[in-house]
């Protein structure tokens, strides 16, 4: 008898907890910010947007290209996010897709002399082809083995593909001139921010679509996804295709920022940086990874400037060469303590900014339950 009562008590307790949760969820779904809340949120969002739009004019003229670079890294971060965050496939060799796009665009601009926007399309296509090679391998291999293949691919790309003289110009590189309407750095920065905006829009619509949800289902469990009628082969390849297109376009924009693409611009270390910024930003969350990308685009310059201007301890010892070490430390701290990265640390802020309650973190961070699924 006594045990039965105890069991009843436990069951009752569980039922009560479930009811409580359901009630809270319903309440949260019904919740709308007050008028003042809406005004405050719109004001903050507007200010951030204004700051981003004004950034090419705000920064000193020598750093205008840095804004372009930050936008390019943002696009790369979104590209990484599709693979690492949504599809659950690790890529340690994203510098290969990025570089293939850059050289594709440079070749199209210099050797075929086609218009800039058409060259962007070429970059998207070459990036997609570069990614689909790995995608085809990923159909057979997963986890650790896929990770090894991406590393070997990155080395193969940097040492071999990027050094084929007739395609990439060898060590001297291939010129990637900007078109006449984008020769000014400020205009080019706006162009890059615009493409980042488009990529963001695309990413948003992707996660809201059936295809996007199918890709995320692959991350959680391929077999379960297949049992729900999701075509694993197609959607995995689609994830690699999207990632490759985004990386290729980013590569083309990167090449034209400096006006030339050389093999040394795309070392294996760059691929590691791309992975680091995605994980540190918070894989699975578009706002997190973009912040990670921007952070790592600016980090070397920030460190260099701090080293020159602040004559107090940490800055006297470190300069731009410390960037990989700081990135690595951030990555370790993220993996061990906050697997959700920047997005996890900002979950309340992100919830608030998406017109929810400050404490309401459902879905606002876009993470799988527990945040573990979004780990690389």
């Amino acid at each position, binding site marked *: 008898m006594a045990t039965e009562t105890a069991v009843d008590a436990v069951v009752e307790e569980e039922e009560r907890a479930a009811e409580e949760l359901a009630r809270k969820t319903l309440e949260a779904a019904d919740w709308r910010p007050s008028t003042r809340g809406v005004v405050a949120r719109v004001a903050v969002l507007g200010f951030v947007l204004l700051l981003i739009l004004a950034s090419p004019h705000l920064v000193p003229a020598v750093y205008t290209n840095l804004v372009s670079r930050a936008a390019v890294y943002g696009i790369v971060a979104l590209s990484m996010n599709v693979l690492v965050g949504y599809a659950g496939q690790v890529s340690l060799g994203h510098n290969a897709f990025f570089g293939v796009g850059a050289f594709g665009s440079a070749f199209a601009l210099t050797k075929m002399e086609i218009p800039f926007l058409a060259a962007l399309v070429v970059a998207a296509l070459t990036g997609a082809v570069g990614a689909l090679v790995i995608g085809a391998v990923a159909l057979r291999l997963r986890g650790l083995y896929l*990770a090894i293949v991406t590393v070997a691919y990155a080395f*193969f790309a940097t040492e071999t593909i990027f*050094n084929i003289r007739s395609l990439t110009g060898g060590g001297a590189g291939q010129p990637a001139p900007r078109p006449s309407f984008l020769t000014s750095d400020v205009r080019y920065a706006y162009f890059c921010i615009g493409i980042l905006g488009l990529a963001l829009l695309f990413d948003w619509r992707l996660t809201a679509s059936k295809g996007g949800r199918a890709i995320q289902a692959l991350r959680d469990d391929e077999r379960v996804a297949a049992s729900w009628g999701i075509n694993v082969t197609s959607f995995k390849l689609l994830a690699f295709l999207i990632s490759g297109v985004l990386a290729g376009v980013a590569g083309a924009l990167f090449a034209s920022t400096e006006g030339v693409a050389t093999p040394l611009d795309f070392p294996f270390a760059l691929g590691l940086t791309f992975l680091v910024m995605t994980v540190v930003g918070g894989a699975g969350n578009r706002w997190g990874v973009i912040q990670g990308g921007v952070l790592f685009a600016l980090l070397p310059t920030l460190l260099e400037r701090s080293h020159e201007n602040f004559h107090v301890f940490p800055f006297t010892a*470190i300069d731009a060469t410390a960037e*990989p*070490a700081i990135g690595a430390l951030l990555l370790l701290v993220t993996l*061990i303590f906050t697997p959700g990265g920047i997005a996890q640390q900002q979950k309340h802020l992100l919830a608030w900014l998406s017109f929810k309650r400050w404490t309401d973190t459902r879905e606002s961070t876009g993470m799988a339950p527990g945040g573990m699924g979004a780990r690389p």
Partner: protein
Amino acid sequence: MSTILKVLVIGLQAGAVYSLVALGLALVYKATRTLNFAQGELGTIPAFAGYLVMTGFRTSGEPVADKGRFWIATIVAIAVGALLGVLINTLVIRWLAAASPVTSLVATAAVMLLSTSLAVIVFDPKIRRFPQYVGGGFTFPGTDVIVSWQTIVTLIVLAGAAALLALLFRTPPGVALLATAQEPFAAELQGVSVSAMRTMAWAIAGVLGALGGLLGAGVFASIAPGFMTSTFLIPALVGAVLGGLTSMVGAVSGGLMLGVIVSAANQINRSFELGIPGTPQVAAFVVLLLVLLLRPRGLFGQEA
């Protein structure tokens, strides 16, 4: 004939170092299911420690390579390697025990990045001279192929390390290590301290890494920050996969085979004037893809 011999000799020289690194990779993978991307750094950092001993702890001196100093440097390097291996396990890998293998791989990649970057900050990215254990070489009888003594030393060390590891797996601690690798929970129930076994595996991997670093430095008679990672890690990784990631025999034979394959690819590229840039990377990538697609468990691996 002499070309084939030359390809073999050059291949075995690099391949022996690949094998030492691959042995460390395989041992750690077997014991902790972690693919250690920092295995190359377990060679670079000890090599630099040995270099510091030989220069009298100056970061930019000429190494004094008298016999006594060299042996002290070797012992210090091996100790540093073991310590480094244990540190990586204690500070990083232990905390990620519940995470997926890919997460711990990314973590070891971060350790690699951190170590390379710190080495660049302390030592600058420049090449330093590093003495070989035995200089010179001998001409292979009947041909004009020169075999360096360094290659012989490396092969002997490799054989010794492999034999000691094979012996280890026949002693009680070795069996406990195998048990930990196969089923940590059951091993714990049998009174095996899983964490101690994992620490031991990382320490041995550190020693193997240090040996690889000292002998890898001898291949070019020079060291530079991250040299083991950039030159030897990827071929060693591919060699380990080729031999079967969990197999010690596989690691040794896979590393040696890959050394010969790479050397043959280089020779083919040269003699037929194909002009393919980065031939070693092409060879490694192709071998990796073929192995993973045709026989994912490798030549000697027991499981996929």
